[in-house]
């Protein structure tokens, strides 16, 4: 089902696969979003550092900022292979959200110091956007940053902080103006998680891991902790989300799951119309996402702008992830509810975990939010 790429990109794919064959830990099952088991975390961190030493973290960033200056297509292939191999790469907040923001608006000094620290895995970032009363609606942020001499003093509460206890710094969105709008009122800061006034309270989640509630109680940060310009946080975040030139290749890990499912069923005596129907549905979901992803990446590379192709990609990616997990139940039947420690759990109990984790599909905005964005920005419907 994979798209045929140029010989150079296919050679690049082979190089990545060879690296993964050699370096991927034998027991690498690790949910990078949530897992906090110390031994698995150490394994993931060690693997991620090997990836960094190859120069494959921040692949598209300029070389002078610790990147490799490679193309978005090469990055897409890298991300596809990492996802297909279920490779435990940590620090996605730093690699995508923080780096995207720093590249878009950071000062030269910030780019020269913060980005190499990310690409070498020296600094791990936790996410500090969401608040108890501000999820997708960032305009409702209550966390405030107030100038005090050369410093800023930040006070507020953040919710669902992924990787909080394992990280070094927090990517914080804070209100620096009384304006109600998102444009012009929100600024981005990098906050050392060991600063006085920072407290993390663990919240266990349904996916099997931990996130945190993060309290910022008069946390004093230096002036250079402000990333980019004051009040431009919203546009930086949108840029980081939408202009990276790559698309999270969920389809690639889904195809690996589909392959595992087919192998699991291989040799079974019956493959009736019902099984074919379910497999075909899974295949359609994988291929639809892959086509839309390459459309978005191709458009970015060529400098084209589709009317709303990117919006469709986001809706589909959001909506297909839980549907994909649900379809495994249809194919595997009651055994799909068995946990990994149950005798006879199909595929080592992975479908049970996928199903639970698919409910984390709200991260970065729910499917409904993406549809509203498509309707209003893409189709021009009224708000």
């Amino acid at each position: 089902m994979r798209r045929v790429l140029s010989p150079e990109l296919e050679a690049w794919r082979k190089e990545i696969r060879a690296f993964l064959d050699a370096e991927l830990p034998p027991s690498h099952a690790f949910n990078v979003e949530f897992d906090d088991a110390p031994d698995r975390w150490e394994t993931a961190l060690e693997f991620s550092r090997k990836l960094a030493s190859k120069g494959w973290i921040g692949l598209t960033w300029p070389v002078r900022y610790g990147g490799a200056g490679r193309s978005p297509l090469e990055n897409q292939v890298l991300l596809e292979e990492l996802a297909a191999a279920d490779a435990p790469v940590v620090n996605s907040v730093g690699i995508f959200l923080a780096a995207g923001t720093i590249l878009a608006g950071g000062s030269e000094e910030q780019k020269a110091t913060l980005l190499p620290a990310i690409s070498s895995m020296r600094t791990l970032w936790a996410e500090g956007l969401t608040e108890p009363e501000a999820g997708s609606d960032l305009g409702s942020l209550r966390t405030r940053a107030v100038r005090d001499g050369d410093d800023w003093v930040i006070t507020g509460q953040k919710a669902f902080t992924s990787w909080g206890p394992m990280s070094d710094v927090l990517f914080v969105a804070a209100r620096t103006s009384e304006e109600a709008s998102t444009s012009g009122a929100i600024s981005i800061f990098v906050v050392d998680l060991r600063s006085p006034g920072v407290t993390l309270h663990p919240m266990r989640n349904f996916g099997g891991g931990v996130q945190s509630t993060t309290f910022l109680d008069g946390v004093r940060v230096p002036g250079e902790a402000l990333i980019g310009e004051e009040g431009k946080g919203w546009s930086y975040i949108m840029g980081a989300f939408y202009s990276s030139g790559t698309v999270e290749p969920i389809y690639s890990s889904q195809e690996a799951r589909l392959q595992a499912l087919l192998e699991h069923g291989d040799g079974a005596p019956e493959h009736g119309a019902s099984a074919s129907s379910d497999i075909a549905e899974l295949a359609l979901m994988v291929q639809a996402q892959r086509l839309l992803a390459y459309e978005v990446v191709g458009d970015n590379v060529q400098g084209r702008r589709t009317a709303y192709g990117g919006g469709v990609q986001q809706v589909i990616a959001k909506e297909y992830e839980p549907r994909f997990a649900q379809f495994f139940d249809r194919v595997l039947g009651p055994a799909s509810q068995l946990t990994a420690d149950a005798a006879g759990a199909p595929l080592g109990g992975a479908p049970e975990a996928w199903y639970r984790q698919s409910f984390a599909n709200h991260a970065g905005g729910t499917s409904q939010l993406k549809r509203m964005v498509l309707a209003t920005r893409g189709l021009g419907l009224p708000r």
Partner: protein
Amino acid sequence: MMDLIWGEDYDVLAEVSRAVFQRVSPLTDREISRDLADEIRELAELGWLELGDPRSAGSEAADLASMAAVFVELGRALVRSPLPALTTARDAALLCGSRAADDLAARAATGGVQVFPAFTDPAWRRPAPRLRDGVLTGTVLDVPYADAADVLLVEATENADTDEPVEVLIAVHRGPRMTIDPMPNLGGYRMSAVEFRETPVAEADVLARGPHARTALVGARQRTAILTAAQVYGAGSALLDRTVDYARERRQFGGPIGRFQAVQYLCTDIAVDAHLTSAFIRDAARIVDEGDDAGLAVALMCKQARRTAEQMVHAAHEVHAGIGFMVETDIHLFTKAAKKWVFDLGGCDERHDGVIHAEMRRQLIGARL
């Protein structure tokens, strides 16, 4: 890497097609009526009866990803045209690979002889006509423009020297030993049931036999499916425009209904489905144009396009509500056309699911069902 875009000549063909089809669109003039001979003459003059060559992967001929532009605009204007059927017959004839078939295709390209396909759609659950000792017997349903055809390109089976039926493609000239009965249908498409009553067939009119016939039929059907899906995409785009416009204008509860999320989601359903169909079309057309095995890509495309045809009209009716059910609005025109396309694309998922399942097993684990 091949980009996921339409063909090189797509924009040029789209511009011309839009001008041609909008002139005769029922969305512009509901009462419009055209003489079939005039239509075919115009198609010939435009060069659209010889547009693209199914045998010419990588040649100078317009590729399928460009040709699709004509059919997208055909769908956008909801024009019921003989072009899709003429193209199917032409493609099948060219893919036969015989001198007689090439000659027939060449004459059809000028509009001088009207060749329409009489292929057996499994959805009707009827066997193909049988050729025995030079005599053709059987019935084909849903034959487009059969009443106006000079020649029907018939898919049949014969038991020549083996026990297993062999597929044949035959050029059958209109004659007395066939009956053509109209099949009135929801979309108002010109289709007929054609019964061959011991119709004599000369050996020279058997254009392809066995694997050659199979290759021609599979190739023509794949290309036809892509061009049918292109019409669905075009119609979906037009329906989306109308539905979004209506959602912005229609006021209820003190404001435009388009501000309600429930209405927004119905509009985004059409946008998402239409755009997905477009992505699958571009992928399948690219694979066909490169001469690679397009079985999986076409099956996935049919599955998505068929679903789009069904769902887009449902969503548009939901947004338009009562007024959409009135014939004074155009929504029902899309609904009628969509019904035909659903069956042209396979009628149900099952038609394609087996292909997709088998291909997935072959590609992902190297096994065959």
